[in-house]
């Protein structure tokens, strides 16, 4: 153990004394996470709150109401079937779902009779602030219903006709109420008709008359039935939750390149001669390297996770899962490091081949474009990139909230890949010049 710990200590010292490596293992990943995380986190606010809407009523009124929501700058509306709308909110893809139930249209159309129109609303409980805002927006639109009704007197007149008829034919209404309304409503109608005439005159003479706001405030514009939403979140909590696993990959890239170059440098510097001349086996030399690389990866990623938790406030609810991901991803890339060192042979070969491979892994593995934002063709290619499985391990251990069996897939792939690459690499690699 003394031998291995000496080798690890030496390798870590050599690695982190190189300023370029330190930049690529800590500086660049942190910049990456901070920069893109900030962009993702502030996004969404500008284009309006994203909600799912389901129209079960299918009347002109319900269609018009949805259209008005869509026109509103504070909402971004996607129409979808009821179950999809609920699912989208559960998974955090939408802030809320709004269902227009059967009967919405008639209730919306009649101002003074029947109940006020109701909406079924379900809101992502983790987005309380946005929910409050949504409620405000919907109520405002309900109030607008009255304003529209009163500012469009012709529709108000026809609405009053309907209402008078329905009052007369309503048997359940107490007699006093019926007689009161029977007297009252026709008077309102007459007044409205007269005002309609004077308004038309005024419009002809160029005067602007606004009407009806006083009455609108007195009534309940809209009833909102809130439903509880059970979340099964698949969306990240904040932008950094996405960029930190990506940043991990960039840090991994820094360490892997640093170590594979350092391994070949031992040959060019001649220090490998001393290692080979010492009474230790080839496997001990390679094992020492692998262990050093493992510790470097583990260390760098742990530091990044600490940053993620305490600086970027990425929730880490399952530290054990994170640990499992860290271990398996470290092992995976130790193997890849060994393989790159063996195949690249020279420092120049490793630099070009290593960077090339690792960048392609990054592109298709979600270190540049997040996995969930990839087009489908790219998603299927990403299966071949170890970067994907590394990032998925970290996402699974954090915001994707994988169960242990689910986590086993990406972590297992990393482990198997690591062992296979290490065995192949350590066979191929030449220590002697």
């Amino acid at each position, binding site marked *: 153990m003394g031998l291995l710990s000496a080798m690890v200590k030496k390798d870590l010292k*050599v690695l982190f*004394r190189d300023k370029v490596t330190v930049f690529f293992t800590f500086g660049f990943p942190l910049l990456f996470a901070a920069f893109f995380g900030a962009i993702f986190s502030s996004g969404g606010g500008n284009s309006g709150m994203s909600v799912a809407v389901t129209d079960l009523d299918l009347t002109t009124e319900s269609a018009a109401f949805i259209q008005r929501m869509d026109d509103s700058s504070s909402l971004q509306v996607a129409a979808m079937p009821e179950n999809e709308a609920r699912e989208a909110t559960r998974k955090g893809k939408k802030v809320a779902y709004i269902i227009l139930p059967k009967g919405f249209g008639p209730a919306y159309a009649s101002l003074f009779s029947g109940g006020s129109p109701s909406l079924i609303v379900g809101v992502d409980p983790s987005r309380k602030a946005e929910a409050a805002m949504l409620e405000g927006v919907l109520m405002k639109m309900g109030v607008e219903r009255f304003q529209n009704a009163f500012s469009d007197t012709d529709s108000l007149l026809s609405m009053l006709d309907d209402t008078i008829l329905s009052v007369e034919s309503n048997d359940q209404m107490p007699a006093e109420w019926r007689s009161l309304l029977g007297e009252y409503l026709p008077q309102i109608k007459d007044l409205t008709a007269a005002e309609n005439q004077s308004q038309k005159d005024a419009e002809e003479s160029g005067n602007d008359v606004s009407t009806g706001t006083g009455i609108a405030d007195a009534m309940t514009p809209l009833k909102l039935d809130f439903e509880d939403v059970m979340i099964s979140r698949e969306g990240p909590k904040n932008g950094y939750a996405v960029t930190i696993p990506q940043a991990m990959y960039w840090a991994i890239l820094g360490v892997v390149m640093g170590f594979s170059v350092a391994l070949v440098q031992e040959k060019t510097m*001649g220090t490998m001669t*001393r290692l080979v*001349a*010492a009474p230790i086996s080839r496997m001990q030399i390679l094992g020492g390297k692998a262990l050093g690389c493992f510790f470097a990866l583990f260390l760098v990623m742990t530091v990044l996770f600490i940053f993620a938790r305490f600086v970027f406030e990425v929730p880490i609810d399952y530290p054990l899962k994170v640990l499992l991901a860290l271990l398996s991803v470290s092992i995976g890339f130790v193997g890849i490091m060994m393989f790159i060192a063996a195949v690249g042979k020279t420092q120049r070969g490793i630099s070009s081949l290593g960077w090339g491979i690792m960048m392609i892994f990054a592109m298709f593995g979600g270190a540049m474009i997040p996995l969930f934002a990839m087009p489908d063709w790219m998603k299927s290619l990403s299966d071949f990139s170890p970067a994907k499985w590394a990032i998925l391990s970290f996402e699974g251990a954090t915001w994707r909230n994988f169960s242990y069996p689910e986590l086993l897939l990406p972590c297992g792939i990393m482990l198997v890949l690591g062992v296979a690459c290490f065995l192949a690499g350590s066979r191929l690699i030449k220590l002697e010049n």
Partner: protein
Amino acid sequence: MIRLDAVSKRFGDLLAVNALTLNIREGEIFGLLGPNGAGKSTIISMISGQQQLTSGTLQVGGFQPDSKASKRLIGVAPQAIAVYEDLSAIDNLEFFGSLYSMRRAELKQRCTEMLEFVGLTDRARERVEKYSGGMKRRLNLAITLIHDPQVLLLDEPTVGVDPQSRNSLFDNILALKKRGKTILYTTHHMEEAERLCDRVGILDQGSLLALDTVENLIDEHGGASHLSATTATGVVDRDTHQPVVDLQEILSKHTGIRDLKLQRPELEKVFLNLTGRQLRD
């Protein structure tokens, strides 16, 4: 101590070492003198177990060259300086020492001694990067000695070194001989071989051309000495194989001799006579 019997090494078509038979005795400084490409480094890497022999047998202290036992006996100073430039001298020494399963206290002690031995104590904690070529060479030697090996393989240990560091390295090597170490020293500088080595093997294109003490090599292959005398009448000079006889003759024939010079041939001449070429081109 080091025994080579008909050792050959082939790289493809090139026969780098050709049926070399050699016995380096315990406690001697054995010089391998030859031009670049003669096969010196290849011989060292076979002795230290880094390269396989193509044919022949080789033993170090009775052990196979790639065995752990023989690796423990040997300390190699590679021709190219082999140190971690990003680390300090003391880090380098401690790391390489740890490859030989030394106990911690013993290792620390050795580090201090070796730094003292090569005169790097003052700058032990500085990064090697900042060292001069001579300092790096001295560290290269110190690392070779860290596990107190019995056999030293020093491959051109003075290349790229200022005269001061060179003298200090010579002193080190002679001190090591006094401590009973067996030393194989390769060089293409005949002065170094003359100054340090008990016996010298002359190597060219993988073949050993001659092997003896410097004195004997010169006697046998050096050719004539050069004798010159300045007399009242002029300069008398001649090449001779019997300088004493010739000197007596000159003294008896001439009077009023103002200057006398007797120059023995150097190893350079030995090489020239053996190969028809200069050692340094």
